[in-house]
C-alpha cells in the first residue's frame, strides 16, 4: 500500500492532488533534453499504486486518448491509492509514429530491453521508467497495439510469474472484462523478461497486464466505442484493486486461452479485409476466409488469409497496404484442451 503522497522524479505529489511530472532522461544530439512525462492522480486515501503505460511502441498511440478520458473520470476525493499515467513512454518513436526508436542501436525496441541496462536512448528511457515509475507501482498495465489499419481486443497474462503473482494477475484480468484473455509464459516465452510486463511481473513481482484494445483508421463510431471500452475496463480493474467503488462488473463471456495464431500475410500488397473492426471477438470456424492480399500493381489475388483453427478473432484489419508480416488477423484457439469460457460477472 502506498502512502498518501507519492514522489515521482523527485517531486512529491500530495494526497488529493493531480500533477504532471517531467523526469529527465538524457540530452539528444539535437541538443534538446529528452524527458519522460508522468501524470499522477493521488487519491485522498491510501491504496494501490496503479501504473498505466501507453505508447511504449511509437506507432501504438491509440490508447493515449483513452487514458486522458480515464483521468477525467477520477474523483480524487474518493479515490483510494494513486494512478500514474505515462501517456507516451517512447517520445522519439511517437514523433515518427514508428514502433521502435529510429537509431542505429542494437536495442531499438523499448519493450525488449527492460530494465534498460545500456546507454542507448531507448535504454535510458526504459531505465527512467523502471527506476522512477515502475518501482513505485503495485500493479501495472501496459497498453499496446492500435497502429493505423488494425485493431485488437485482448489481454496478456503471464503464467510463469511467481504463483501468487500469476494468480492475482489472472484475477485482475478477469475483472477487467475483456472478452479474450491469453494466459501464456511471458518470462520464459514471448515477449520475455525484458518486456515491460515480463519485467514487472517476473522481476518486480507485481501484477502486470498487457492490454490491447482498439486501433486507428476505423471511424469515430468504432474508435469511440473502443476508447470507452478501455476506460470502463480500467475502472473495473481499479474497483477490483479497491481503488474506486460503484463500478458495474463485466457481464459478458470471456475466453481464457493459451494458443493464438497470427494470420498475417506472407507477401506485401493491399489487404482486402472481410473481417473489419466491427468483427472483433467474433467466433470464426477453421477455414474462414478472413481477407485477401491483392497486388497493388496488377490487382491479382496474391494470398488468402484463412482462420487456421476454430477460434475467436483477436485482431482484425481494414483495407490497407500491408507488408509481409503486417498486422491482419489473429485467432485464439477455442480448443477445449487449451481454453475455457468464463460466463457472466465475477466478483473478484
Amino acid at each position, binding site marked *: 500500500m502506498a502512502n498518501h503522497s507519492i514522489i515521482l522524479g523527485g517531486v512529491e505529489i500530495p494526497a488529493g492532488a493531480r500533477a*504532471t511530472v*517531467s523526469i529527465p532522461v538524457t540530452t539528444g544530439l539535437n541538443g534538446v533534453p529528452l524527458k519522460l*512525462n508522468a*501524470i499522477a492522480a493521488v487519491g485522498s486515501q491510501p491504496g494501490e499504486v496503479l501504473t498505466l503505460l501507453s*505508447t511504449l511502441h511509437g506507432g501504438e*498511440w491509440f490508447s*493515449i*486518448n483513452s487514458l*486522458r478520458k480515464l*483521468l477525467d473520470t477520477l474523483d480524487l476525493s474518493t479515490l483510494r491509492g494513486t494512478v500514474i499515467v505515462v*501517456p*507516451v513512454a517512447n*517520445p522519439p518513436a*511517437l*514523433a515518427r*509514429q514508428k514502433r521502435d526508436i529510429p537509431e542505429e542501436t542494437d536495442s531499438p525496441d523499448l519493450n525488449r530491453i527492460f530494465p534498460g541496462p545500456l546507454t542507448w536512448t531507448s535504454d535510458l528511457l526504459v531505465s527512467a521508467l523502471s527506476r522512477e515509475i515502475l518501482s513505485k507501482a503495485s500493479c501495472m498495465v501496459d497498453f499496446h497495439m492500435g497502429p*493505423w489499419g488494425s485493431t485488437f481486443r485482448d489481454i496478456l497474462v503471464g503464467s510463469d510469474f511467481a504463483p501468487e503473482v500469476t494468480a492475482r494477475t489472472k484475477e485482475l484480468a478477469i475483472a477487467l472484462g475483456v472478452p479474450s484473455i491469453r494466459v501464456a509464459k511471458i518470462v520464459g516465452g514471448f515477449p520475455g523478461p525484458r518486456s515491460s510486463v515480463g519485467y514487472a511481473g517476473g522481476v518486480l513481482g507485481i501484477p502486470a497486464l498487457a492490454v490491447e484494445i482498439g486501433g*486507428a*483508421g*476505423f*471511424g*469515430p*463510431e468504432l474508435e469511440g466505442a473502443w476508447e470507452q471500452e478501455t476506460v470502463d475496463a480500467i475502472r473495473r480493474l481499479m474497483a477490483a484493486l479497491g481503488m474506486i467503488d460503484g463500478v458495474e462488473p463485466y457481464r459478458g463471456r470471456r475466453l481464457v486461452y493459451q494458443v493464438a495464431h497470427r494470420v498475417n500475410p506472407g507477401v*506485401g500488397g*493491399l489487404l482486402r479485409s472481410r473481417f*473489419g473492426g466491427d468483427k472483433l471477438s467474433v467466433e470464426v470456424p477453421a477455414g474462414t476466409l478472413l481477407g485477401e492480399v*491483392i497486388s*497493388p*500493381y*496488377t*490487382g491479382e489475388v496474391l494470398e488468402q488469409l484463412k482462420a487456421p483453427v476454430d477460434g475467436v478473432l483477436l485482431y482484425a484489419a*481494414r*483495407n*490497407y*497496404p500491408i*507488408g509481409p508480416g503486417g498486422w491482419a488477423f489473429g485467432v485464439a484457439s477455442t480448443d477445449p484442451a487449451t481454453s475455457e469460457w468464463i460466463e457472466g460477472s465475477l466478483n473478484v
Partner: protein
Amino acid sequence: MSDLLTIGGRTFQRGTKDFVQFPVLLDLDGSQIQLTVHVLSGARPGPRLAVVTVLHGSEWQALETSLGLIEDLDPSEMSGDLVVVPVANPIAFATGTRNIIDESDSPDLNRSFGGRQTWLADQLARALVDEVLSKVDAVIDFHTGLWGAAMGSVTCGRDFSDPSVSERALGMALAFGMPHVRRGDLATKFPGPASMIGYAGEKLGVPGIISEIGGVGFAPEIEQSWVDTNLRGVRGVMKHLGILDGEPEVADEVLVFDQVTRVNPTVGGILEPIFPPEGLMRDIVEPGQLLGRVWSPYTFEVIEELRSPARGLVDMVCRPYPVRPGDWAYLVIDLDSPTNYTLKREA
C-alpha cells in the same frame, strides 16, 4: 504509323485490357524496381488518357480508383486508350512514406520531373515521362489519401506557355464534375515543371489535372464516397475527351478559386478536430472559427488552436491523430478573394 500504343516494349491490341511490367533501376538491396502500367486499349482509336496514382508513397487511397477503373471499364466501349499506373512510386510505397528514403537531393518524385541525375526519383520520373506521359494526350494525377487527413478538390494549371494547354486542363477539371476547381500557377510557381502535371503541361504540352479528393482513417462510408467521386470524375473526363460515349456531368455553377491557406499546426501533439469531415467542401466557416486544436500527449493540455483565417470552404479535414509541426490539418479557401470567379454552364 500504327495507332496502337506501345509501352515498355509491349504493343497493346485494340479492345484489350492488359498490363506490362518493365525494369527501371536496380536498387542496393538487389531488387529490380519496375513500373507496372495497365492499358485499356479501346476498340476504336481515339485520345489517350493516363491515370497516375501513388506518386507519393503514403497517398495510397487512390489505388482504389486506379484498380477500380481497370476492373470496371470495358475496352469495347472505348474510343481511345486509358493508361493506368497504379503505383508510380513503388519505392516510397513500400516504406509507406511520401518520399523515397535516401540521402538524395531529390527524394520527392513529384518534384523530380525533368531531373537529369541518377537518383532513384530521377530515374522513376524519366521512366514515367518516356513510357507514359510522352505517349498520352492528357493525364490525371491523384494525390492525398494518407492516414489522418482528407482533401476535396481538383486542381488545374492556368499558366502554361501554351495557353491551349491551360484551357484544355480547365475543360478536364470541369468534366471531373465538382462544383469547385482550383486553378493555379503550376508551371511558374511551386512546384513548377518539376511536378508531374507541371512537366506534362509545360514540357510536353499535355494537359493534366490533379485530383486531391479523399483520405484514409475515416469512417468506411465517407471513404467510399470519396473513391466513388474519383471514379465518376475519371469517367467524366473520359467522356469529355471522347474516350467514352456521353456527356460529362458538369456542375451548373463552378467556383474557380486560387487562394488557399494551410491551417496546420506549428507544434507537435494530438490533433483533435472540431470541424467535421462531413463538412469538407460543403460547410462555410467564418474568420476566426475554431477548426481544431492540438493537445499535448504528455500533459493533455491544449497547446494550439487552429482557426479559420477567412470566410471560406474547408478543402482539407482531419481526424484525431498525432501530428508533427506542419502536418496536414486544414485548408481554407477564401471565398471573399477577388480572384475567385464562377463559371455557369450554358443551357
